[in-house]
């Protein structure tokens, strides 16, 4: 199967739109230990991890821009941040291609930390004069933990949704061939 760019684009647009709407309309209103899950950075990071740096960066820019417009925030701020997140996750795949089962958890935690700290730094740089206390730090830490906790199911959904437009991973195909039995080149007559 080859990369279907058009199908991938449509799937990414739907994924990004649904992610932002569900986040604003529902998930942001559910507070757990004083914070809430933030799906947007982890979905962007997972898209980068699955599709590569270029697609991840474009997806991150699009989701960030949609968030900025929908939340009436300075336009371009989240777009810039998520662009970097999507690109970084894509480069991780291209350079290391980690296969461990805990990769989604680690990527989600790192992406959330990057998004929260990056947003804080950019807010200061853009002149948002807000007092900072331990509450903010606590909320950031709790958000990172919550995002890490939901990482595996979210990664599963994103992978399932995007994988139909992606070429099949040769290593996965090879693994499946061995485990299903009789398809190894060595076992062929």
């Amino acid at each position, binding site marked *: 199967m080859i990369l279907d760019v058009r199908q991938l684009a449509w799937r990414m647009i739907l994924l990004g739109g649904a992610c932002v*709407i569900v986040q604003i309309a529902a998930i*942001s209103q559910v507070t757990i230990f004083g914070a809430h899950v933030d799906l947007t950075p982890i979905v962007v990071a997972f898209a980068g991890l699955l599709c590569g740096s270029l697609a991840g960066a474009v997806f991150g820019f699009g989701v960030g821009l949609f968030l900025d417009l929908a939340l*009436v925030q300075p336009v371009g701020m989240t777009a810039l941040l998520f662009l970097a997140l999507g690109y970084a996750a894509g480069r991780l795949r291209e350079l290391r291609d980690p296969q461990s089962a805990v990769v989604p958890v680690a990527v989600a935690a790192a992406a959330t930390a990057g998004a929260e700290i990056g947003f804080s730094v950019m807010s200061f740089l853009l002149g948002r004069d807000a007092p900072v206390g331990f509450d*903010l730090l606590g909320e950031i830490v709790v*958000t990172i933990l919550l995002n890490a906790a939901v990482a595996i199911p979210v990664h599963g959904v994103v992978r399932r949704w995007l994988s139909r437009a992606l070429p099949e991973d040769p290593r996965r195909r090879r693994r499946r061939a061995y485990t299903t039995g009789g398809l190894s080149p060595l076992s062929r007559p």
Partner: protein
Amino acid sequence: MASALVLLTVYFGESSSGGLHGVQRGVMTVLSPIQEGASRALKPVRDLAGWVGDTFRAKGDVQDLRRENAALRRQAISGTDAVRQNQELRKLLALDQAVGLAAAAPVAARVIGQSPTVWYSRIFIDKGTGAGIRVGQPVVTGDGLIGQVTTAAANSAVVTLVTDPEIAVPARTSTTGVPGVIQVAAAGSDDLLLDYTTRRDRLERGMNIVTAGTMSTSDRLLSAYPPGIPIGRVTRVEDPGTDSQKVHVRPFADLRRLEIVQVLTQRVNGNRP
């Protein structure tokens, strides 16, 4: 990356009636029916998660409530304090009625979204300029003041909460009338501060804080908030009796779980007491 930087530069360079702000209002207009539908559809999920959160929080509250119960029991025995509290509550209730919220033409609205970032304490409501909502109007719940309308589209609006660093509310204590300005203590928290008090102002834990309304006789300095709307209760005072005393206030309204709010669309008598 260049696009993001150009957008940021243009956004900060233009006025609130500029192109990008207009696009934001347009997106709000298009998005609000979708958001409202999603909000209604996902309400059971929110309620379930809220129930789980409440259970954890309730465990933590038990000790506080026990302490509060013991304190209230002591006050009930002595009698006078309870009577005073009762009078205070009645006064607050009477004040609430005297504020004349009906005269302020309140418009009820549903909360259809909330900002996910800790740096922006904002909610989105399903009523906009079509229902008479304008930028600058105060927003309340049954518990008290929650914020101010900061952006209004045709069918939706953005309410910036009192826990946002952009919001400052002229306030006073309900009993002694000590004036000050309510602002958030730190980004991402529900802790408010009553600023600009002096060493002569005696402030104690448990005092109720309400909006001050317009204090000036000039029509150019009208407050956006009607007088007497409850804001919160003093939880602690750091460095009491000094000019730098920090008066911490906890809002009456649960700002993390809002469903129905009221926007006060009319200013009565210039919001003067």
